[in-house]
């Protein structure tokens, strides 16, 4: 069995995953996404892989490479559909809403004036987020009309085309923490709470992580979220939850290239090992299928011997 690990930077997470794969003596090939190129009419060079484990920091690079590899019939973890569903907050919100999964209210607008109207209608405070992006970057809590006008103008003037999409989320007055649940397939395997004095609690922004015991309510919510985002087989996902003042959990975001360096010791769960289990299970299925297909098309061999001599 051969696994490709598609990466752009080897961070602590990738190092841990590589070490776990090596510990299991897996035939592993590291694929630098910056060196990725493929002739779309010739999948042959890529058929050596039973699965490709995607761990790029760039969503654009990840989606592009994975779409090509999927078209060659190579299972990728996560699939491009999952990357696209998770990588765009509006797409995520639409999927969650369509599937009846508890999530903060969201309005979307495509014009600065209309965005201001939408913000006023939603009521202050609101949170403006870039539809694409992560690590808590460029989030803005907007408390009043003055701030709304300033942020909308800045986004319109300074931002890229993407910032012309105004993703407006209700501000959830969370109790000083949010939750992150790690899901393998559709099974929540571990969770942390992230606390910060700041309203942004991402660990990338200084939030402090501690282990969190998954409740039956959160377990069910995350299983339903995983199925909504990735189908019955699920995926490797980190689901971010906010809690209302009444303690009701809401799905805020779903991440497709989970970072877990602060969550192994805090949860006591060997997250990279569980991720590798999942990847190898998918690769094993492909490996078995390929072997059975090869056997089916191989010419039948006959035992040689005297023929037609009566």
């Amino acid at each position, binding site marked *: 069995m051969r696994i490709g690990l598609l*990466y*752009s*930077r*080897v*961070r602590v997470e990738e*190092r841990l995953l*590589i070490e776990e794969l090596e510990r299991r003596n897996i035939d592993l090939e*590291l694929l*630098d996404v910056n060196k990725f190129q493929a002739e779309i009419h010739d999948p042959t060079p890529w058929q050596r892989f039973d699965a490709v484990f995607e761990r790029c*920091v*760039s*969503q*654009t690079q990840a989606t592009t490479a994975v779409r090509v590899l999927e078209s060659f019939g190579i299972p990728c973890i996560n699939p491009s559909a999952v990357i696209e569903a998770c*990588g765009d907050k509006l797409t995520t919100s639409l999927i969650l809403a369509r599937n009846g999964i508890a999530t903060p209210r969201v309005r979307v607008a495509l014009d600065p004036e209309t965005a201001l109207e939408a913000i006023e209608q939603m009521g202050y405070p609101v949170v403006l987020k*870039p539809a*694409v*992006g*992560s*690590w808590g*970057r460029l989030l803005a809590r907007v408390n009043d009309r003055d701030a709304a006008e300033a942020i909308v103008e800045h986004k319109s003037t300074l931002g*890229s085309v*993407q910032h012309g999409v105004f993703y407006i989320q209700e501000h959830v007055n969370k109790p000083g923490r949010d939750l992150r649940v790690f899901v393998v397939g559709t099974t929540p395997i571990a969770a942390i709470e992230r606390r910060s004095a700041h309203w942004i609690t991402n660990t990338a922004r200084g939030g402090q992580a501690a282990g969190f015991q998954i409740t039956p309510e959160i377990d069910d919510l995350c299983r339903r979220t995983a199925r909504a985002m990735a189908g019955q087989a699920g995926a490797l996902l*980190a689901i971010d939850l906010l809690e209302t003042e009444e303690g009701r959990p809401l799905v805020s975001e779903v*991440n*497709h*290239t*989970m*970072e877990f360096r602060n969550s192994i010791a805090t949860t006591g769960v060997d997250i990279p090992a569980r991720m590798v289990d999942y990847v190898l299970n998918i690769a094993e299925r492909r490996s078995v299928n390929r072997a059975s297909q090869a056997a089916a098309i191989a010419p039948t061999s006959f035992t040689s011997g005297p023929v037609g001599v009566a």
Partner: protein
Amino acid sequence: MSATPTTATACTCPECEANVPFARRPLQGEVVRCPDCSAELEVTALDPITLELAPEVQEDWGE
């Protein structure tokens, strides 16, 4: 700008010229932090080990 390689398990920071030690042999593309100036560095070659300043975070980077 790239750093001058020193030994197999250490390299010079391209930002502040401090010694950046490696507890084990790094991987191509590995991201490390300079213990002196905290610059984020990327291993761009292995033989010899070469460090460059890691690229700035792009708009679509994340989880």
